[in-house]
């Protein structure tokens, strides 16, 4: 039973989940297929030529990275595209006229982005699991990083959706910040294989810790300790949550 004070936020959460589910081909199945194409192409081409961690095929190494990349990009896309569309169509007004609090608004949008992130992540994982010899040695870490990373990117997507005035602004955010940071986060490689400068630079990319911590859950091997990855990811989540709540309580770009 949901307390009555939270029913408004719950309604918004359910609405946001139903929104992406109503276009599931675009929001769930297409990203899964795209990730599987990466797996087929990179896995087949590089599999025999590269050893990442000891006793591990490249395809096995790649799958958790691809799962996490899909989670990150789709969690971001869910909040950001929903917000910008709501602004463009004007239907954000309906929520803004209601007594839904800024905190409930935030939790509802981020919650829905977690659901979408996990839905596409599970899709990639299932196919990877069936087609490749993949085992998860610490399911708790896998789940923890999946949920936490989806929440982080849902929150980042929310910031992008709030500050963007048009689709072009959002595309800039996505193409010049999110995609480069995800591609350079160790999805396709271990940062230990990089030259010293780029290896050091990778430590300033928060997405790296999400990918590395998630991968630890599968192999109990990672570039940095999972504890450090958890601390950085939680700190990043708290920071983007704080920014969101400040924007929402002040009504920046949505109540002015």
């Amino acid at each position, binding site marked *: 039973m949901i307390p009555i004070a939270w029913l*408004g936020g719950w309604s918004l959460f359910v609405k946001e989940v139903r929104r992406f589910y109503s276009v599931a081909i675009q929001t769930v199945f297409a990203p899964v297929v795209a990730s599987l194409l990466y797996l087929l192409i990179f896995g087949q081409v590089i599999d025999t030529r590269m050893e990442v961690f000891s006793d591990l095929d490249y395809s096995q190494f790649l799958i958790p990275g691809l799962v996490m990349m899909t989670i990150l990009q789709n969690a971001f896309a869910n909040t950001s595209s929903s917000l910008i569309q709501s602004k463009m169509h004007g*239907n954000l007004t*309906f929520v803004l*006229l*209601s007594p839904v609090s800024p905190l409930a608004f935030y939790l509802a949008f981020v919650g829905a982005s977690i659901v979408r992130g996990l839905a596409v992540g599970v899709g990639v994982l299932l196919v990877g699991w069936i087609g490749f010899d993949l085992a998860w040695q610490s399911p708790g870490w896998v789940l923890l990083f999946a949920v936490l990373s989806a929440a982080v990117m849902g929150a980042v997507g929310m910031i992008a959706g709030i500050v963007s005035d048009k689709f072009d602004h959002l595309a800039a955010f996505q193409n010049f910040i999110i995609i480069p940071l995800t591609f350079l986060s160790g999805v396709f490689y271990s940062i230990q294989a990089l030259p010293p400068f780029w290896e050091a630079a990778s430590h300033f990319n928060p997405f790296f810790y999400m990918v590395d911590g998630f991968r630890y859950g599968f192999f109990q091997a990672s570039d940095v300790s999972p504890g450090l990855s958890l601390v950085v990811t939680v700190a990043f989540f708290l920071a983007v949550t704080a920014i969101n709540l400040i924007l929402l309580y002040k009504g920046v770009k949505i*109540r002015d």
Partner: protein
Amino acid sequence: MSIKPPAVSFQQVQKHYGDLPALNGVTFDVRPGCFFGLLGPNGAGKSTLINCMSGLVRPTGGQVSVQGHDVIKDYRQARRLVGVVPQELIADPFFSIRELLKIQSGYFSLRGAAQTRWIDYLLDRLALKDKADALTHELSGGMKRRVLIAMALVHKPQVVVLDEPTAGVDVDLRKTLWEFTKSLHRQGHTIILTTHYLEEAEALCEDVAIMKGGELKTLESTETLLSRHNYRYLRVKTGQGHGTESLVDPLQSRLADQDGNGFLLRLEKDLALNDVLAWVAQSGVSVQGITSRDATLEEVFLDLTGETK
């Protein structure tokens, strides 16, 4: 005995967009249960004021309260009391009309059989029953407007705000809309209306506020506003083809309008009618009829705002 707070109270409300002032310290109250007209030319600040009240815009300064509840500090209660029909048509590409009404009810923590019955009632009353399962982009402009009205009423608000509700709406829908609004008013709801159709405001509104340039110009009962106006109007019907060139100077300076059938004079209320008739006779005009009337709200509005027809 406790005194009822105003339905809405605006106290020194200011809103600035950068250096551009949209509201300059607007202060007034709306009586509970009143059918209230908020009028003004484009850019007067009417919609900004309404948006400050409904929470869509944060005022730069001042205070707005709804039945005593501050719209910032006590926003939950204030928003439960207000239903806004926005000026712009709004679309949602994902959900049907009935789903939108259910979702909106959810935002107000309303659900269950009683709420479903209320949604059915709104769909029926606003002639949307046949389109309940349609998406908003499948609807005509008039139907979209009705959906917005249903959305605004889904939580049974005490104060209903209609921001230009009849803009671009056909005569039938306008009539339906006003009948529905009048029935809400009879049930005790406070209605706040902004419109450019001043005949509608004159016919419907008990009190009228006129704004210009982000400031309140006047607020009075419609009756007082019309009766306190300093002018009355005299319509002189002449034969076809008579121009106004022959009118004597005192009439020329009071000429308000003219057409092929005569002319309209705008006269000070204390001006003796005998003098006017004497000036008409001096002008050598062939008079076929004369009618006198008080100013309409539109004429009062034009005088107060300095706008032209």
